[in-house]
């Protein structure tokens, strides 16, 4: 596969990407290296794994990390209840040594996402989401899997990967990840998209969207992200939700009133909503359309139809 092919496949999945992103994905894919993606919340890190699964025609296996996640939830667990039942049922029927041995076989093994991804005959995309939320011990445990593509189960031995999964790790940078983990991965930092890219994403994800509205929403979202008063910056998913909500309401022009009514799709805290109010009403530097840009008192002209 080359860059152009991968790019075309991603575009087929309606994923708008730049050259850097495609190159990094291809590098990770070619070298069989895990890909660590960092960036602010809502820039589309998780989406990369989903789209890669669709583009490569692979299953997506997802492991959502959280504080306290351990091997039993991530790798495997013995089906204890089934083992107890087996012991009780077969206690007098079988040779005890054979019974003990049979208790640690595939029949009693509950595969969790990590084991599932490496035992799969067909290669999968493994998404280890929000690794920064997991404990450092778990991060250390991942090292064997990521570098050797194998895991050790004490009762069974070393389980080597039947196929090499494409591993995507995402992090919101709530804590620094270890150097050892970083060294084993290819790295990508995703920023919020620029205006053109945001418009392209809206076009790709919301079919038949009003062109004029898409531009207005993208501009307004950028103004909100640029505003220092807004603490939780709107994500791409929120942009799409907003467009969908406006379309559902039959809005074709983003007036201050329409923006105010639907702002709850974009900003999710009362502080941010209060801070956005002056931008919507045209106080400060805003033009009154929600885009917040300073147009030097001449209006923005090219994309608004105030009063119409």
């Amino acid at each position: 596969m080359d860059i152009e092919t991968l790019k075309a496949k991603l575009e087929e999945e309606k994923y708008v990407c730049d050259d850097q992103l495609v190159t990094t994905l291809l590098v990770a894919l070619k070298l069989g290296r895990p890909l660590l993606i960092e960036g602010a919340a809502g820039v589309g890190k998780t989406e990369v794994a989903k789209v890669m699964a669709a583009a490569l025609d692979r299953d997506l296996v997802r492991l959502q990390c959280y504080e306290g996640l351990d091997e039993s939830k991530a790798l495997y667990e013995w089906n204890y209840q089934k083992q107890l039942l087996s012991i009780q049922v077969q206690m007098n029927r079988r040779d005890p040594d054979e019974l003990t041995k049979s208790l640690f076989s595939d029949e009693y093994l509950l595969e969790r996402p990590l084991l599932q991804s490496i035992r799969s005959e067909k290669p999968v995309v493994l998404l280890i989401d929000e690794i920064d939320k997991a404990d450092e011990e778990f991060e250390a445990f991942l090292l064997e899997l990521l570098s050797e593509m194998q895991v050790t189960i004490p009762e069974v031995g070393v389980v080597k990967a039947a196929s090499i999964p494409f591993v995507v790790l995402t992090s919101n940078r709530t804590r620094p990840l270890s150097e050892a983990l970083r060294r084993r991965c290819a790295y990508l930092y995703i920023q919020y998209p620029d205006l053109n890219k945001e418009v392209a994403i809206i076009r790709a994800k919301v079919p038949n969207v009003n062109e004029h509205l898409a531009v207005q929403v993208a501009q307004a979202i950028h103004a909100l992200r640029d505003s220092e008063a807004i603490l939780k910056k709107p994500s791409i998913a929120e942009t799409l939700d907003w467009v969908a909500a406006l379309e559902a309401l039959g809005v074709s022009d983003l007036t201050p009133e329409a923006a105010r009514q639907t702002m709850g799709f974009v900003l999710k805290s009362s502080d941010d909503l209060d801070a956005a109010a002056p931008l919507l009403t045209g106080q400060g530097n805003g033009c009154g359309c929600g885009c917040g840009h300073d147009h030097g008192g001449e209006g923005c002209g090219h994309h608004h139809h105030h009063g119409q």
Partner: protein
Amino acid sequence: MSETVYIEKMAEFSQRLRQEGLAVGLQETADVCRLLSDLELTDRVYVRAALSALFAKSREEQAVFDRVFEGFFVSRERREALRRQQEAEAQEIARKRAEAERELQFEGQPIELREDLKDVYVTMEDDKKEYLRQLLEKTKVNAQRSPKLYGSFIKSVFMRFLLEQQMVMEDAAVGAEEADPDLALLYRDISRFRDADIPRAAALISAIARQLDAELSRQRQGRGHSGQLDFRRTIRKGLETGGSFYRLAYRRKRRRRKKLVLLCDVSGSMLQFSEFALRFIKSMSEVSESSAAFLFSEELRRVDPFALQNMDAFRDYVRSSGLYGRGTDLGTALEALCAWKPAALGPGTTLLILSDTKTVDLPRAARQLLEAKRQAGKVLWLNPIPAGKWPYVRSIQTMSMLCQMVPCSTLDELARTCRKLLSN
């Protein structure tokens, strides 16, 4: 380009990255070589993205990578142009240095200055140089009467002025601003934050405090149990597995929150730093409710916890308390703190002093610091003056001999200090 040249170039590039502090291993270099030939990447954008993915493993490292890449992979014409530009610049600097050597003279003798300060003089703006020239001119008559006395005076004035200029230049040279404003804010001198930076800095502080909290909570979890079996929880857990004690539960160690006493200088230039430092420390959940904060300039006030809820409330509080805009008397403040009823300091407390050490009556302040040290379990001084300037400030030299002092001129240093303080 032949394969050998590829490998040599990449090895050289890896070496440059290592010199800049990036942990680039042989594996990465080998992977890059393999990749470039396999994919036949020739477009600069693609090559850059591929190299960046493998060599730079964080946002910070990407900034370093970009700089090294720009300097390393240049076209022949561009390299030639750069060489000519560098030569011209080197000649210009040599000319200015010679000029500076002529100007930095007092009574026909060169003023003894460090080489780096002479470089500061060379790159300084003309109006600043003019100020120093006029100073020499004004003192000329007196200097002829008493050359020795005025010689050391001129030297100290020049040194202080050039040090200040050096600090300004270093702040202006924080290069990450365009790439990542948050990153730049993290490493910028707190006292030089602009009004527009304050909301961003406040959000950054909250983010770092959350990050530190999460880190510390994980460290605590890793510390394990106290060694005592918790019978009740073990039996309860055993019920889930048919009465067999499959997993044993242990008692956890009781965690004591740190009790901090914060003593903050809010006189004039220290206000901004104290504001940020207080906000930072108080936003950490590790800091217990029983911790206390005191503000001082010429006198001491215990701060109302409500005043620490946000920046505006804090500023209003400081201004209405009458502490703002007055001088600094650390001796009086420490004396009042030691005599505070009920006692603020005790063997289990850590006294954190946020001050630049500039105070009236330094000997008395030093005596009172020793008394505070005797009363408190531990004293730690957070100093907003960068460590590089400490050798030139007498009060810092005195105070740093009496207690542990750490430089905290940036949010990054502040975060590192808090991490160290609370994880011990």
